C-alpha cells in the first residue's frame, strides 16, 4: 500500500476525507492514508509545499497562489461550493454592532470586518460583499478563527463571515447575530479546493487520481447523507457519528450533532472545479496587489484531474 499524508482541519467541510478513510475508500485504492491536523488553512499550504503533507483541502488563499507561483503547489479539484438553496456561509454581526444598527450587510460602511489574514477567503468574502453593497469596510487581521470569535463576542470587531455550523452555533447561543448569506453576494463561490504539491500533480498521476476517486466517493456519501438527505435518517445519523470522530470530538455527541448537521454544504461531485469562481478570486487578489499580475489560472490549477464546471 502507498503511504500518504492528508492535511485537514477539524471542520465538517473536510468530511469527505474522513468518510473516505473511515469507509475504507482510500484503502480500497491502495492508499495508506494518515491525517495531519492543522489549526488554520495557511499552514496546510506551506506543509504541502514542504512535503509534510501530500494532499489537502483548503480555501484559495494568497499564500496558496504564491506557493503555486513558486512551482510548489497545484490545485487539482474543487470541494466546498456555495449553492443557492443550500444553507451556506453566513454573514455575522456582533451583538453590539447589531444593536447599533448593523442589521444587514448594507450597513457595513466603516465597520470592522474580521479576517484571519490579509488575502484569506474571509478577506475575499468581505471585499465582495462590500463591493456589492457599495460600502467601504475596515479589515482586521486576527490570524485565527478562534481569535475572531472572541473578538466578535466581545465586540472588538463588528462583522465576519463563516461556515454555517460555526455561525449557527454562535447565533444560537446569542453571542452574535446573522445578518446575511454569502451565497447572495457570491453565487457559486468555490470555497475550497483540493490541492497537492506540484511534484505529485506532475509525476504521481496514478496516486493522485486514486486519491481523488476515493475522495469523491467520500464526498458523494457525505452529500447524500447530509446535503441532499437522500440516505434517510439512519444514513444521516451514521454519517454524523462518523464525522463526530474528527469534528467536535471533545463535545458530547448530542451537542456536536446539531453543529455537524448545520455545517453541511455541498462538496463538488468528482471534485469538479468552478473555474469561473477561481478566476474571480485570482482577479480580486491581483486587484488588491496581493499576488503578481502575471499569475494566471494555469499557474494555480492543473485542470487535467477534475471536471471543470
Amino acid at each position: 500500500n502507498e503511504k500518504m499524508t492528508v492535511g485537514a482541519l477539524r471542520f465538517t467541510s473536510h468530511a469527505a476525507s474522513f468518510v473516505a478513510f473511515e469507509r475504507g475508500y482510500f484503502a480500497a485504492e491502495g492508499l495508506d492514508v494518515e491525517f495531519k491536523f492543522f489549526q488554520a488553512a495557511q499552514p496546510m499550504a506551506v506543509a504541502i509545499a514542504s512535503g509534510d503533507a501530500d494532499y489537502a483541502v483548503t480555501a484559495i488563499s494568497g499564500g496558496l497562489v504564491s506557493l503555486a507561483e513558486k512551482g510548489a503547489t497545484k490545485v487539482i479539484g474543487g470541494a466546498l461550493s456555495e449553492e443557492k438553496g443550500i444553507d451556506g456561509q453566513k454573514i455575522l454581526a456582533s451583538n453590539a454592532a447589531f444593536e447599533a444598527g448593523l442589521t444587514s450587510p448594507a450597513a457595513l460602511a466603516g465597520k470592522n470586518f474580521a479576517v484571519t489574514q490579509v488575502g484569506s477567503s474571509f478577506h475575499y468574502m468581505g471585499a465582495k460583499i462590500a463591493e456589492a453593497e457599495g460600502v467601504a469596510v475596515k479589515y482586521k487581521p486576527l490570524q485565527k478563527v478562534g481569535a475572531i470569535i472572541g473578538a466578535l463576542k466581545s465586540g472588538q470587531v463588528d462583522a465576519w463571515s463563516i461556515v454555517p455550523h460555526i455561525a449557527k452555533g454562535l447565533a444560537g447561543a446569542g453571542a452574535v447575530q446573522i445578518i446575511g448569506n454569502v451565497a447572495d453576494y457570491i453565487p457559486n463561490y468555490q470555497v475550497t479546493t483540493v490541492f497537492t504539491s506540484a511534484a505529485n500533480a506532475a509525476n504521481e498521476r496514478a496516486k493522485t487520481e486514486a486519491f481523488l476517486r476515493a475522495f469523491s466517493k467520500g464526498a458523494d456519501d457525505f452529500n447524500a447523507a447530509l446535503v441532499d438527505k437522500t440516505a434517510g435518517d439512519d444514513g444521516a445519523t451514521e454519517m454524523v457519528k462518523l464525522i463526530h470522530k474528527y469534528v467536535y470530538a471533545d463535545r458530547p455527541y448530542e451537542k456536536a450533532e446539531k453543529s455537524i448537521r448545520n455545517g453541511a454544504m455541498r462538496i463538488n461531485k468528482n471534485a469538479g472545479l468552478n473555474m469561473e469562481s477561481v478566476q474571480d478570486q485570482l482577479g480580486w487578489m491581483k486587484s488588491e496587489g496581493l499576488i503578481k499580475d502575471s499569475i494566471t489560472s494555469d499557474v494555480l490549477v492543473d485542470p487535467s484531474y477534475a471536471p471543470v464546471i
Partner: protein
Amino acid sequence: MSEKLVRFRGGGFRPEAKRGAGLVVFVVLLLVIEWGTRAGWISNLTLPRPSDVGATLAGLAQSGMLWTHLVPSLTRLVVGAALGISVGIGVGVMIGLFSYVRAGLVPLVAAMFPIPKIALLPLFVIWFGIDEGSKYALIALGTFTPTVVSTYGAVDNVDRGLIRMGQSFNLRWWSIVRKIVLPGALPGILSGLRVSLAIGIILLVAAEMLGAEYGIGAYILQAGSLYDLERLFAGVVVLSALGVLISWIVGQMEKRLLVWRG
C-alpha cells in the same frame, strides 16, 4: 563642657529581598483578585478567578493532559535550546578568539538580533518541515543569538593578565584556551544561559503556532483564541513556573561550577 554622642548617619541603600515576602505579595495579590472577581468589581472578562485557574491546573494535572502538553514542549525546549546554546557557545568562543571570525560574524549576529523569530516561521516550515524540525530550529535560532553575544562578551572579559601569564609560562595556545579562557568565561556564559533559556521558553509559544496539536504553547494559543482566560492563565502559570525552575537549575549549576567564586 558640652558632650554629645556622635550621630549615626550610615546604613541604608542596601535593600535586601526578604525571603518569603515575595510569597506574601503573591498570595495577597491572588486573594485580592479572587475577592474582586467574586464580588464582581473585576469583570470575568478582565481576569479569571484565581481559584478557577487553580482548578483548571489541577484538572489538567489529574487528567494527565498536563503531561501530554508538557512533554512535547519540554522536548522542543531541550532539543532546540541544546542545539542553539551549544552552537552559540562554540561560535561565541570563536568570535572571542579569532579576529576574522569576529569581523565576519559580529555584524551578522547584531543584524539577526532584532529579527522577530515568529516572522521566520513560514520559512522554517519549508526548511525544516512542519513537524518538530521547524520548532527545534526556531528555538535553536532564538537561543543562539543571545548565547553568542553573551559568550563572546564573557571571553572578552577574561582577565588578559591571566592570559599574558599563561603566555609568559610558555603554555601552549590550546592550553591557554582550555585552562584559562574557557573557565574564565564560564561565569559570563552561565549568566547568559539564564537569558537564553528564558527566551527559549518565550519562543515555545511562537514555535507552537504552526502545526502543533500538543504543547504548552499550543494550549495557550488555543485558550487565547477562544478567550478562555482560565486556561490561558493556567498555561501561563506553567510557563512561568518552568522559567523559575530553569533559573533555579542554572543557579545550582553556578553554585556547583563556580565554587571558586565563593
